[in-house]
């Protein structure tokens, strides 16, 4: 993917806290483990040399445990925290070079953010919370309320426009957060652990809501989470962070099929592989004593969805991509994978 047609392009981004942060970047100290760096120079490298591209309309997930630097990273992208060095290019413009006035303009019109603790303004009605970015941009009351009412409809908050945040449940409050982020019709939305404060059932609803909105509106999203299941559910691609650096980036299938290191492997171990991997990853050549059943399934099928096709066949099933056969799967292969035994 070339820089010119990606929605966001992040290059060599660093965020170092502590004294003389710019001296750390590029010095041998930067490679030190976290504790040693702090001991030696008093600095903490929260984001280390992060680079990635996000395509227009993509949902890009940044995943990591607490302290991995993911929240700092997303704040660097919108300059809520000033990065130490690097570049963040959106639509051909380096956000890090924008003047204060230009940055405000970008924030008011081009990108928006959803927060873990919602960040709603308790002293304002739902509708005025949603219209806030328009208000600070000088949009007339009539126009901004009209727009706010549109997004209220969009996120299913009809009838709550005049309520105050404290009168809503957590899930409803985050709908207000989503509506507020959508109100300016941004190019990019940043979601910082938007559902971590919600209980599991509501979290699932809200994930579905985000995916629905994404399908309807096609916004580019950068989604921060510590929850792997959430990452797998909403993400087109996932970057896993540890100690401020990205340790692996790829689709869910790539991460699970080929973890880059023990850390990622450890992380993904409990994910039911059959729910993520496609049949392509377990297709193998036919052994000499086996005969193909004559049935076939497309290579892009998720293993779980191929359950019936594999188990019902009376022999190995072919995995095909177009006209080529990539390999075969037997019921035994399938059960070994689902049962968690080693494959082959």
């Amino acid at each position: 993917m070339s820089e010119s047609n990606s929605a966001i392009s992040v290059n060599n981004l660093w965020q170092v806290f502590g004294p003389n942060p710019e001296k750390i970047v590029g010095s041998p100290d930067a490679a030190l483990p976290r504790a040693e760096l702090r001991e030696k120079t008093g600095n903490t490298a929260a984001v280390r040399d992060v680079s990635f591209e996000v395509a227009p309309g993509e949902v890009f997930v940044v995943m990591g445990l607490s302290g991995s630097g993911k929240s700092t990273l997303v704040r660097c992208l919108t300059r809520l925290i000033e990065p130490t060095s690097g570049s963040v290019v959106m639509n051909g413009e380096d956000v890090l070079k924008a003047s204060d006035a230009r940055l405000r303009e970008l924030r008011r019109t081009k990108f928006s953010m959803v927060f873990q603790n919602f960040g709603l303004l308790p002293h304002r009605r739902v509708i005025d919370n949603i219209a806030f970015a328009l208000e600070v941009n000088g949009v007339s009351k009539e126009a901004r309320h009209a727009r706010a009412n549109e997004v209220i409809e969009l996120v299913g908050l009809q009838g709550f426009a005049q309520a105050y945040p404290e009168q809503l449940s957590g899930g409803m409050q985050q709908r207000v957060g989503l509506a507020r982020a959508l109100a300016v019709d941004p190019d990019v939305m940043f979601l910082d652990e938007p559902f971590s404060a919600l209980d599991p059932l509501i979290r699932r609803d809200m994930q579905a809501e985000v995916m629905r909105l994404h399908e309807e509106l096609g916004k580019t999203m950068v989604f921060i989470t510590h929850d792997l299941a959430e990452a797998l559910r909403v993400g087109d691609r996932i970057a896993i962070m540890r100690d401020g650096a990205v340790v692996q980036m790829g689709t869910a299938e790539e991460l699970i099929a080929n973890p880059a290191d023990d850390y990622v492997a450890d992380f993904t171990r409990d994910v039911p592989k059959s729910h993520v991997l496609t049949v392509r990853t377990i297709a193998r050549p036919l052994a000499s004593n086996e005969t193909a059943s004559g049935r076939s399934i497309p290579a892009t099928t998720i293993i779980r969805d191929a359950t019936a096709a594999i188990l019902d066949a009376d022999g190995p099933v072919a995995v095909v991509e177009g006209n080529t056969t990539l390999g075969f799967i037997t019921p035994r292969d399938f059960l070994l994978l689902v049962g968690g035994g080693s494959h082959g």
Partner: protein
Amino acid sequence: MSNTKETMFIAKPKKLKRGWLIAMLFAAWVVLAKIFQGQATLVLAVPEDTGVTTWAGNVAASIRANRSDGASFKYFFNPIREFIDGFVTGIREIIAIPAGDSSIPLLGWLGVIAVIGFVVYAVSHLRMAIAAVILVFACGALGLWTDSMDTLAMTLAAVIMSLLIGIPVGIWAGLSDRALKAVTPILDLAQILPTLVYLAPLALFFLIGPASATIATMVYSIPIAVRLTAFGIRGVPVSPVEAGTSMGTTKIQLLRKIQLPMSSRTIILGINQTVMAALSFVVIAALIGAPGLGKPVIDALIIRDVGGGFVAGIAVVLIAIMLDRSTSAAISIDESFVPAPASARRRRKLGLVSAGVATIICIVLSRQLAWAAYFPEQVDISKPVSNVTESSIFWITENFEFLTTGLAKAVTVGILNPLEGVLSNSPWFLTVAMISLLSLILGGLRSAFITLTLLLAIVASGLWFDTMVTFTQTIVATILTMLIGVVVGVWIGRSTRAERALRPILDAGQTLPAFVYLIPMLGFFGPSRFTGIATGIVYSIPIVVKIVGQGIREVPTNMIEAAISTGSTKWQLITKVQLPAAKKSLLLATNQGLIFVLAVVVIGGLVGAGGLGYLVIVGGSKPELQGKGLIAGFSILLLGLMIDRIAQYTVARNSAPKH
């Protein structure tokens, strides 16, 4: 969590050793003081001067001589004084003193009461407004209408100007870390500075009168407005601020639309505290010519007229209650931002309009008709109140002698005199050495160094003996305060019921000016050192009880459950778990107690307690002793600083995690 556990675990054997050290130190101190009793005590008779006090007197004299011609006066002090004087006079002319050529203020008493009722109704609710009206009327009924109005006007003037300066500075300190760092030392100093200390220096530059009284009041109350405003701004949760920034607010928009509305509750609390501080100071500022209720209080204290002083004291209390209740009623009780339903708002609008009309009618009447202009003299209950007070105090002192003179005697003979023997009646070098050593054991090397420096500065000032007299009284009062405060604090910390019952009393106790407590104490104990001590105790108990209670309450539940589940008795639970775990609060309470006590004990100089406070007060009234008074004030400051530093270093040492 692991840190505190570790500290407590390691600190144990060390503490034991330290306890032994302190005990040995005291033993040596007592023995040596006995041996050298009465030698090198640096006693200085009241009219006597030292080099330092003579110098201060000369400086004061030259400043006074310079007042009309000196450039700093012409272009700095005098314009400030004239401006503030004009402002204060303007406000006084509205409610207290004859305005211009008229023989009455702009508003007669009926008009004033109506305006007060209306304002209180507008910021809170009808019940509070009625209460405020009754309280103000009662001040008039005590025969003190004009003095009460003067106090109110002085308070109002000082509060307006304090807020005009304090809130912007507070916002600045709330937004900028650098600004906070710049103002924090000033705020800290203001907090430990006994009020009596800066009256005389300010009067020197701004003359005796309403202007310097107002400036002194502002010096006292601005830090409070700054601190609470900054605290409010900093207390706004991070996420709405981040959300606002991420939506492209300018700094001004962020402040106006998010930070200020969300911190309004704390800022109003700050206004409440500023008002109460200003009121209590305006009363004391009568010493440098503030008009109002402070004057009858001081006059009564000087001629030992307990009944008359009590009447004026009650008026102060009534105004304090009125101001405190109505400003705190303006803070909505629940945390909700949801406004009242439309019907209630309509009703309220109607109420405000009709109250407004009634107020205007009252104002007009009060400017036209004599009965509405001059507070009716027939309504005067001051005599009976004064008589009842005097006879009941007489009855109490007659029938409960063991509680009044008996208690005073017991404390004086049992604690005060022996301690004076050690601190002030022994050679100064012994006391300096021993206090420094104590500071070394408690707070470490730096603490000892600062203590030694401050003590030597006091010796150099020539007022060593009087400082030690004041110090002795401060320590005795603090010990008694802590004994009572810890017991009550533990009680309210453990029982929600007790907390709920005592909280209003504690709140009220904290808002009353220290002066007011002097009057009944004078009645019970007569003019003596113990009267100052008793006032100090009564004044500082509420803050000590509150801090201790909160400390006990904040001990983690799991600690308590663990102790109960291992079979602790209630007594074991308190002594072995709750008190040790609340150690930091106990130290903090001691520090606050000392500072509060010191501020009040020096006022005891008015009622025969002697020491530095007495010198400050005579220095204010006798020009030939002015130098001595100024140095006495400075010595109070040094003493306060020393107490605070030792306490701070002790706290720091006890809470820092050790490796």
